[in-house]
């Protein structure tokens, strides 16, 4: 005898299972892995156990002992023979530029020509970096399994000789300012999208069905067009010798040498991204506005309110859930946008995503990419919580 209730629940669970598994495999698991990567870095610790063991007892002020030099040198050579030194070298190099070739070069030299006498002298003879305390500190630090360094790096911080937290030198402080700029540009994009989308959504929601259908189609056509195609058309339109500038010159609004810089800068990023993201603002607004009875505006008018009074006091507050949903959606999407700013952003229109992509694809510093991503995620979650407080997510509708 099967309990019908259990049976029903089981069936519901089975129906939902494919999606749950899909989300877990394609989203939650990679997310968790990336978060782990941002603090967990076992490669060096696993590769250099003896060296790190020897360095653990070292005071960090004078050069390590001859014994430590010997242990380290031997370990480098052994690793190099099994092709495992390269990945260690890349990781130490992130803490101190130049360490990659120092380590690989030293290992090659020591392997070809093992020192007869002092390892210390042999290593320092081969590469002066070994006479620097900072070299050894870098190796010791790279050997930390659980490390805050990616987060420090992502916040333009570093650790000094004694492990204290210090600011990066000024010419390497990039991430915090990029993060700020990302937020600023995203906020601007959100505000502009809202200003442009609100009247359109209003028309969509309250026009006669036939006309609303046409309008909705116009909104959705760009939605279905490839992102690259759209971005490229913005280049054609906006560049210095582009359609808009040509038009302005022909109409005599600006002189030929006053052509506006509309692309390859922050303006370009904003214009192109507003266009790309506009539907994500219009659709939630539209779906909320459709639920606001047009009678309410009439009621307000009959009660003596002017159009603006009615709008401000009656319509706008009721459309807020849509405003909130659209703004949150557009803001969160712009924060993570990559292709469009890369192509049209030029010097001043780049977002934090460009650095994340660089560390994912070029430098292979996935730990730092993960830390940057995690910070972004944290800020988005915080923002969401604040929004939830202000608007209430149950009132927010995504359409």
């Amino acid at each position, binding site marked *: 005898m099967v309990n019908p209730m259990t049976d029903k629940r089981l069936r519901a669970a089975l129906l939902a299972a494919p999606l749950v598994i899909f989300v877990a495999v394609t989203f939650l698991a990679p997310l968790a892995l990336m978060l782990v990567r941002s603090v967990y870095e076992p490669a060096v610790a696993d590769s250099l156990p003896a060296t790190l063991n020897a360095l653990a007892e070292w005071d960090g002020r004078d050069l390590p002992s001859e014994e430590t030099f010997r242990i380290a040198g031997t370990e480098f050579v052994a690793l190099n023979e099994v092709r495992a030194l390269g990945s260690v*070298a890349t990781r130490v190099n992130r803490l101190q*530029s130049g360490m990659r070739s120092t380590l690989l070069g030293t290992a090659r030299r020591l392997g070809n020509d093992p020192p007869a006498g002092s390892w210390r002298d042999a290593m320092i003879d081969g590469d002066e970096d070994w006479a620097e305390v900072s070299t050894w500190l870098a190796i010791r630090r790279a050997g930390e399994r659980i490390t805050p360094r990616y987060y420090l790096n992502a916040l333009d911080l570093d650790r000094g000789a004694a492990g204290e937290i210090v600011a990066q030198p000024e010419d390497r402080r990039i991430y915090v300012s990029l993060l700020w700029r990302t937020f600023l540009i995203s906020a601007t994009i959100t505000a502009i999208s809202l200003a442009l989308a609100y009247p359109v959504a209003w028309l969509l929601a309250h026009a006669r069905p036939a006309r609303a259908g046409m309008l909705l189609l116009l909104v959705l056509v760009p939605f279905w067009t490839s992102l690259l195609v759209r971005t490229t058309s913005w280049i054609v339109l906006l560049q210095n*010798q582009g359609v808009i500038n040509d038009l302005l010159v022909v109409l005599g609004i600006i002189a030929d040498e006053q052509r506006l810089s509309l692309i390859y800068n922050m303006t370009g990023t904003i214009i192109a991204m507003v266009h790309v993201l506009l539907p994500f603002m219009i659709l939630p607004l539209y779906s909320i506005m459709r639920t606001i009875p047009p009678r309410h505006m009439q009621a307000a008018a009959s009660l003596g309110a002017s159009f603006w009074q009615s709008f401000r006091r009656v319509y706008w507050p009721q459309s807020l859930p849509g405003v909130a949903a659209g703004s949150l959606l557009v803001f969160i999407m712009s924060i993570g946008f990559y292709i469009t700013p890369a192509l049209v952003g*030029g010097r001043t229109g*780049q977002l934090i995503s460009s650095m994340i992509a660089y560390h994912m*694809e070029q430098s*292979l510093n996935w730990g730092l990419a993960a830390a940057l991503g995690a910070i972004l995620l944290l800020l988005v979650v915080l923002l969401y919580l604040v929004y939830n407080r202000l608007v209430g997510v149950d009132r927010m509708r995504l359409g």
Partner: protein
Amino acid sequence: MRNISLLSSLLLAAFSATAAAQTLTLVSWGGSYGRSVERAWVEPFIEETGIEVQIEDYNGGLAQIRAQVESGNVFWDVVDMPTPDAVRGCDEGLLEFVPVEELPPAPDGTPAAEDYPPGSRSDCAGGGIASATIVAYNDELFPGAKPSTLEDYFDLDKFPGRRGMRRVPVVNLEFALIADGVPLDDVYRTLGTDEGIARAFAKLDTIKDQIVFWEAGAQPPQMLADQEVVMTTAYNGRVFNAQILENQPFTIIWDGQVQEASGLVIPLGTPRLDIARQFIEFASSAQSLAAISKYISYSPTRYSGNALVSTHEDTGIEMAPHMPAAEQNMRRALHSDWVWWADNRDEMNERFAVWLTR
């Protein structure tokens, strides 16, 4: 019943694995270069061996290879890769070694080891194609005096107008120092000091307001054609295509260009290692490397390959004047130092990013 279906799906999987083993996946850059790879290497290789080759495009970087190697599911067999990336991939243990002894000797019998210029090849790479990042300008925009040196690219007084530049530190720091009077041999030594780096950025500062940054290789010729910029850094092959195939009035300044090499690598752990090695051996011969230059203005890195450069397959023009490795173009060429870049790339990238936002 269940056992039978399990068995049949296993059989099916085994069968498709065997079938896949017959197909080599070659990953290259697409565009006009990708087409020349197809015509110069892939088509003759299929004809000679009967092995199927599937060509895929990528945008460089090691991320995808790392993901494949780490997950143990390698589906790329041969990848066309710039030497700095190949070196790092080799260091990180992401690529198979390609012993130089396995590469074919020159037509005159010289072993391959002596036929490659020193430092042009990673231990994990075969093949060998040289390209250059050059400065090119649009002739129509300079009716009078024409730019002829790298200094002219940085000289806004003499040649006013906007400059195109790739939004990365690589090559641009070298350009800045060369234009600032640093001898070619001293460029990387100078960059090795803080003062040298400061000097490079200071030189970039002088044209900063006039720079239009590009990202993808197809952009600079387009920007020149649209007169969006008067001069731009670009890959020489892209400019060649615009000049020859589209009759654009572009001129390349062969002065202080930075020469880069690329090679063919094998991601570690591909199940099709044998045919991957077979393809690299095929594509590394002097004839195969020279065949690329029938379609696009990239040079073989091998000395013996350079001697075989002839004419453009479709237009019949002499290719030598357009080649980065041609003698007349090499008078003031800088070989990119991948070791220096491997050591300093992350730091330079951060500094460059800071410089961009300042």
